């Protein structure tokens, strides 16, 4: 395979395969596209990767990926500083942000508890979260870890940490997706949804109708 292409081309195809979901075939397609069709985009991509890899680190307050010392979510003066939402990845942060239903602060674990992989409280930055809770001013920790054994275990740790500081911990509710038909939902999701059921609120006038 390697002798079919010139060394630089072979290198590029190899390098592109570091991306998740990209194998030999798609790497080839990407390389040809960049070199053949859009040389300028290729240069832009190279420059952007270079500066991102060199300059982006973690926000020193919430661990979100950013090239600034403190990210814009932590700097913003319009957000509710009494709530802090703890999540696993930057992608989860953007998902919550895009929901428009949350306006508090964030904390990104960059993973979840995974004892067999050696990922514990230190790797998840819980010392930093501990310090933020110790500063005071936070009265709710919203735990938004994934609904897996590891996500649950992580949620447990966060709740214990919150309890230590006398702060209420809540877990975001999971259940039937909007537009979801019950018969197509797996039993695990349904049982979560049933456990997390809420009273349907009706106003007195409505009830009288």
């Amino acid at each position, binding site marked *: 395979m390697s002798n079919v292409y010139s060394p630089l081309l072979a290198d590029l195809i190899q390098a592109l395969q570091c991306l998740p*979901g990209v194998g030999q075939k798609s790497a080839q397609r990407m390389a040809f596209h960049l070199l053949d069709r859009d040389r300028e985009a290729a240069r832009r991509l190279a420059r952007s990767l270079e500066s991102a890899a060199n300059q982006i680190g973690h926000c020193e307050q919430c661990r979100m990926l950013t090239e600034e010392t403190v990210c814009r979510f932590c700097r913003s003066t319009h957000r509710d500083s009494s709530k802090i939402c703890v999540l696993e990845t930057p992608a989860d942060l953007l998902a919550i942000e895009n929901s428009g239903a949350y306006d508090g602060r964030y904390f990104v674990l960059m993973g979840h508890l995974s004892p*067999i*992989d050696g990922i*514990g409280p230190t790797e998840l930055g819980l010392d930093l979260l*501990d310090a933020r809770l110790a500063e005071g001013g936070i009265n709710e920790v919203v735990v938004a870890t994934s609904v897996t*054994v590891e996500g649950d275990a992580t949620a447990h740790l966060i709740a*214990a940490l919150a309890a*230590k500081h006398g702060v209420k911990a809540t877990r975001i509710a999971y259940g039937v997706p909007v537009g979801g038909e019950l018969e197509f939902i797996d039993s695990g*999701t349904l049982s979560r949804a049933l456990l997390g059921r809420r009273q349907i609120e009706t106003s007195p006038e409505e009830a009288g109708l």
Partner: protein
Amino acid sequence: MSERETVHLERGFVLHQRPYRNTSQLVEALTERHGRVGLVARGSRAKGRRALLQPFVPLRLSWTRRGELGTLSHVEADGQAVPLEAQRLLAAYYVNELLLRLLARGDPNEAVYSCYSDCLSSLAAAPSVSRVLRLFELRLLRALGYGLELDRELDSGEPLDPDGRYLYDPEHGPRRVRDRVAEEQVYWGRELIALGAERLDDDDSLKAARRLLGRILERHLGERPLKSRKVMQDLVAKGF
């Protein structure tokens, strides 16, 4: 070319999984009749199998295999997830890591499987986590053919004396000591007898069991420390 193996609805548990080539997952499972198997779950994230492919959930797994790794073709639940909380969950991860380190793929051992599934149910319910762990370690070693000699003294062949003091030679067994030896290396006969009879009801026999089993396991595990143990220590150090 090796034979193609096709297995239908085999009982098993996920021990661990990690991302594998593009969008797949490599699932390490412990199964009842095929031992530890490495199974590739293709695009499992997208297909919603991820919800099922979790540790500590009794599963039925189907796969085909030619060579080292199999391809998972079907998975279904075979009961509710074992309810494990906090400390018990960490203990269960330790048990999984122990199995990953001590079991090779393709070495069927039904005794290991029943040892494991008993251990999970006990972890969910039994009052003492450390007692469950010690019994699991003891039974696992036995199932793997590394059983401990806990009945007779090595040199004399006499039954152990409850009030005798012994050194434990990890290769062979207990040897009576009469001279002065560093106290931390000595086991009372009654402690060894209790372990052999799986009767770890008091603190002293539990501590002795931990000390002895730890030493034996270390020999089989080699230099590389267990990661889950490091995480557990980290949690304890941070006050969780």
